[in-house]
Each structure stands twice: as structure tokens, then as C-alpha cells.
């Protein structure tokens, strides 16, 4: 592999990993704190993308307003879903949760079709982030993707600070260890759940907004990425933010180098990675024993 190819793939892997982290972190938090497997997390990603398309391209709102409105709308929607559908499922079997949240995926996908039709839409890259960085003739990299990687990294650091340094972060870490102990200490876990879930939904919506200009905005766009996000969560260890971060980077890097090194089986590379890690550490890299 040439050095230029190596560097570009490294950037690609980091950039893809950051996008995956935004989605996987919400997924792993929801599981860690609430014990809920939320397959419909990808719907927040999709709705974030659709709303920014609606606000920025159809209504022609200024971009910051469009993005903020989309995130707020998704958080509101997420809170309704959390209160109405997921909270009653907290103590239920995981299979029940999987079935119900899978049903939610279908409902949201169908809703997207009803509201925006079956056509494929897209959002534009904002003018200031268009174009590429020309490092050499062989190394050309889109500015937007660098921005995307940067945004992901900022979110990762912010999330780390919240989880490691704040009160809610301490409760989140404690809650992922044992929820009943947290309530025995006199902490009402309901609002904590809602807050964590809202945060996860906001991150997924942000990922959808950031991805909208490079992906297509179409019904079911969340379904493709949620599968990869689950791989990330399983590799990193369910419930661990650190695991989601390391897992996302690993998956991003293996995916982008796999496409160059093993082009014929590239789509299998990350699943092979997951299988190997699970053989070595059955609970994932940073997971706790059940």
C-alpha cells in the first residue's frame, strides 16, 4: 500500500468511526442505564436527516436554526417514545424490547414515506465546507469530511466529560452497574433515564444531520447504519461509552482498510473483527461480565 493511500484510508476510518460513535454512544447509554435494547435508535438518525432537509432545503431556514430545530424536534420525539413505549419495557425481557422497538422502526420508516414520499432526497454541503484539501496530487480530501470527523471528536470529548465529571455522569456509571442500588440511594431514576435517552436521541439526530449531505435521505436510511452501530456496541462492550468510542474507531478503520486490502470480502471484515473480539473477550472490550 502506498503511503498516500494509507493516509487517506486512515482519515476515512477515523471519519467513519466518528460518525458511528455518535450513533453507537446513544445506543450503548440506553442499554447501560435503562437496560433497553432500542433498535429504533436508527430512526432518530433518519428523522434528524429528514428534518434538516425539510427545514434547510424546503423552508430555507438558516442552517444553524435548521440544525438546532431538527435536534430539538428529535429530542422531543425521543422523549415521547421513551415515556410512552420504552419506560414500561424497562423490566421486560430483551426479546420483548427487540420486538417492540423493531415495530417502531417499521412505523417510523412508514411515517417517513407518508410525510416525504418514497423518493430519495438529499441535503447540500454548506458552501463554506465545500471543496477538497489538496495535500498532493494523490492526496485529496473533502473538507466536509474533515469537519465531520472534527465534530464527532468534539462530541466524543464532550460526552466523556459529562460521563466522567458530572453528577449525571456519575449516576449513569452507577446505573449501568446496578439500577436498583441507585434507587435505594434515593435517586429517582425516571428523570435520569429521560435525560440519558434524550441525549442519545440528540446525538443520533446530530449524526443524521451531519451525514445528510454525504448520504441519501431516504426511508430506511437508519436501518443500514444501526446494524453497524450494534456491531460497534458489541465490540466495545454493551453499556460502555469508552467501549463505543474504541469500537467505533476499530470498525471505521477495519472497514476502510478492509476495502483496500481484502476488496472481495470487505463487507465481512467488520463482522470477522467482531467474532474474533467476542472469542477473545465474550463481553466486548470494555464490557462487564453478566
Amino acid at each position: 500500500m502506498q503511503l498516500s493511500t494509507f493516509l487517506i484510508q486512515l482519515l476515512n476510518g477515523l471519519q467513519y468511526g466518528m460518525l458511528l460513535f455518535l450513533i453507537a454512544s446513544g445506543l450503548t447509554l440506553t442499554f447501560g442505564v435503562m437496560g433497553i435494547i432500542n433498535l429504533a435508535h436508527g430512526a432518530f438518525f433518519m428523522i434528524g436527516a429528514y428534518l434538516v432537509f425539510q427545514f434547510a432545503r424546503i423552508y430555507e431556514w438558516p442552517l444553524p436554526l435548521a440544525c438546532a430545530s431538527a435536534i430539538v424536534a428529535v429530542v422531543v420525539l425521543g422523549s415521547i417514545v421513551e415515556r410512552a413505549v420504552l419506560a414500561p419495557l424497562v423490566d421486560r425481557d430483551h426479546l420483548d424490547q427487540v420486538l417492540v422497538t423493531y415495530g417502531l422502526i417499521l412505523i417510523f420508516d412508514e411515517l417517513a414515506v407518508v410525510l416525504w414520499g418514497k423518493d430519495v432526497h438529499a441535503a447540500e454541503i454548506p458552501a463554506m465546507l465545500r471543496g477538497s484539501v489538496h495535500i498532493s496530487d494523490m492526496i485529496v480530501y473533502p473538507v466536509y469530511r474533515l469537519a465531520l470527523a472534527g465534530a464527532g471528536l468534539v462530541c466524543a470529548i464532550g460526552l466523556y466529560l459529562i460521563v466522567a465529571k458530572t453528577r449525571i455522569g456519575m449516576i449513569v456509571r452507577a446505573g449501568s452497574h446496578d439500577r436498583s442500588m441507585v434507587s435505594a440511594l434515593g435517586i429517582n431514576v425516571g428523570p435520569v433515564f429521560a435525560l440519558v435517552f434524550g441525549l442519545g436521541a440528540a446525538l443520533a439526530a446530530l449524526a443524521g444531520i451531519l451525514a445528510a449531505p454525504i448520504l441519501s435521505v431516504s426511508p430506511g436510511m437508519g436501518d443500514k447504519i444501526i446494524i453497524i452501530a450494534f456491531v460497534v456496541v458489541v465490540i466495545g462492550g454493551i453499556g460502555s461509552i469508552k467501549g463505543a468510542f474504541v469500537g467505533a474507531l476499530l470498525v471505521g478503520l477495519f472497514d476502510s482498510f478492509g476495502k483496500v486490502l481484502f476488496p472481495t470480502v470487505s463487507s465481512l471484515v467488520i463482522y470477522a473483527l467482531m467474532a474474533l473480539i467476542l472469542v477473545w473477550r465474550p463481553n466486548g472490550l470494555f464490557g462487564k461480565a453478566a
Partner: protein
Amino acid sequence: MTKDITFSRRTFTKAALALCGTAVTTATPLRYALGADPLKIGLILPYSGVYANFGEGITNGFEFALKKRGGQIAGRPVQVIKGDDQLDPKVGSEVAQKIVTRDNVDLVVGTVGSNVLPVLQKICTDNNKPLIVPTAAGNDTTRVQCHPLVFRVSHSNWQMTSPAGAWLFKRGAKRVMTMGMNYATGKEEVIAFSDEFKKAGGEIIDQKWPGLKELDYQAYFADVLAKQPDAMFTFFAGSNAVEFVKQYAQAGLKERVPLFGAAYLTDSTLLAAQGSAADGVITSGHYAPSLDNAANKKFLADFKQATGKDGDINSMHGHDSVEVVALGLEKTKGDIKDSAGLSQALQKVEFASPRGPFRFSRARNPIQNIYAIEAKGGQLRVIETIQKDVEDPTAECKV
């Protein structure tokens, strides 16, 4: 796990649909309240799933063409029975069984997915019902699988891209890289191109096959920059095509390695989403709304007037499906009982389609022109005719 999910998907689809009261139904009979002895046509298409917009477009064209004919074919009122195959062979088989044997339709129009077509074809031919294929383009349908009662109005995969091989070489591309979605259609279309390109003297320096679930093609692009081919030839469709075209342009590759592909790459339904990223992309295909011929102008104008929508490749396919059936049945005076006579009559159908002159080959695949189509400013422009009267090879068809 996968099995459970499939099961629950269906269960949930039903529950969710019942819940939302959304208007996707598995069978909506459209009754034309006319005299006795109606002609019953089964319309089996994907109305849900990734190719739902194909099903919708074909249906719009189909209903438009029927309305244009006063709801009658060869003097018989037409009753349409719709079914959603969900792009799933199992579902398609159940829907086809019901429509063919229980509703006992006279003929079937369907479908889009090459994966569903074989089961649909088997059920139709087993029951001696003519099948008009509006889209599914697998080469075998009109080669080894060819059948006197199976007529395709779209094209074969080979037909769409094979003429582009020699054409691109003549334009000056000597070293070409290809990328195609890793499934039967993607492979047939890209390989048809590659074979002809090599025959003409060109070199295929690399072929990449990203999966259907691929989201991000960026990781493939470093290799394109490193190998510096003269052109990139591709097959992508639907949302994958939007993602690929946008990412290709965003990576700054379009200016360095010109992008070519099968017409689905910049399908008119995708152009809005692709935006300026599609500008300058050239595809090979049998139809574009900008084709300059009388039949096309009339089709687009009438279609717009009747439906308020712009005609596209799918509505053209739906429209031509009705034309083929109508012109064939006019020859038999509405008789569909004599299979041999009907097969002959349909095979001899010739008309001025919006795509240009249309007639069937011995294998019952259209003989038609293939054009070079350029996307620019959200429009598709035919820049030249790559080859006239292209015929899919019929040697393997033993009819």
C-alpha cells in the same frame, strides 16, 4: 435471529399498517364498471421496500395508458388486480398464487425485482397466463429461461450497457475502472460493459463490488486516485446511486476520472437529490425524458396533463406494458384463450414507443436504441445514439 426478524417484520408490518391506517394494501381491485366479460389483468409490483418508487411509477404509467384507451383493451373493459410482492420471492409467490389461480386473471404484468421474477414466471407459465415484464432485467429471462408467453418491455441488463463498451473506447478511454453493486443485476450490467470494452481493445484495470448495504464509498476512492484510470464505469441504483454520485463528486474525483454508468445511476427520480454532483455524468440507456421524438413528446405532455406528474423511465415502462398488451390483443380481437395465437400476436407487436422504435426479438426482449444520456442542471439530455436497434443475444433461447 434473522428468521425471527423476518417473521416479526411481517407481523409488525401488518400491525403497524393497521395502526396507522396507511394506504398500502396487498390487493386493491380497480373496477371499471363496464359491460360483461372484462379482461382481468394482475399487476404485481413492489409497492413497499427499496424499489417501492419503481412500483409506484410503473403503476402511474400503466393506469394512465389504460385511461387513455378509455379503460378498454380490444373492446373489453379492463379490471386490474394489484399485488405487492415486497421485493421478496416468498411474498411474491403467495401474491402471484392468489392473483393467478384464485382471482384467475387473464394475464399478469410484473415485476421489478430479478429475485422475484423467476417465481412469478413459473406460476404464470404453469397456468398458461401471459406475463408482461415491465422492468426486471436479468439476462436469463429472455435467454435460457425464455418462454413463448413471457414478454419483456424494458431491456436486458446486457442490452443497457454492452453498447457502451465499444463507444467509451472510441471516445478515448483506454484504461477503465468499474464499480457495481454486488448483486446479479449489478454484475450483469458491469460485466456486459467490460466484455465489450475489452473486445474493443481497452483494459479494465480494476473491478470493485461494494455491497448493497454500503453507506460510504469514500474508502474505495483512494485506490481510484492512486490508479488514475481514464474513466470510471458503474452500476448503482436507488439510494445507493445518490450516495455514490454525491460522494464521488465530493471527493473531487469527477473532474479527474469522468463518471459513466448504466442509466439507473442518474435516474430522473434521483437527480434532485444528487444535485450538481450529477452534472456531467454520462450514462447509457434506452430512455430519457428529453428524447426528441413525437411519441415521447406526446407521452410526456399527456401524462403530465392526466396525472400532474413528470413522466420518467418507470411510467414509460408502465405505459408501454399496456401498449404491448393492447396492440397484441387487438390482433386477436380480444381473444386470450388461444395461447399460441396470442404468443404470436404479441411477439409481432411493433410501435413507436416514447423510447423510439419498439419491436420484439425472437426471445421476446425489445430490439431498441441505446443512447448516451448526460445529466446537467437536474435534467437528462440525450447526447447521441450509441447504437441503433440493439438486440440481446438470442442464441440461448430455444423457443
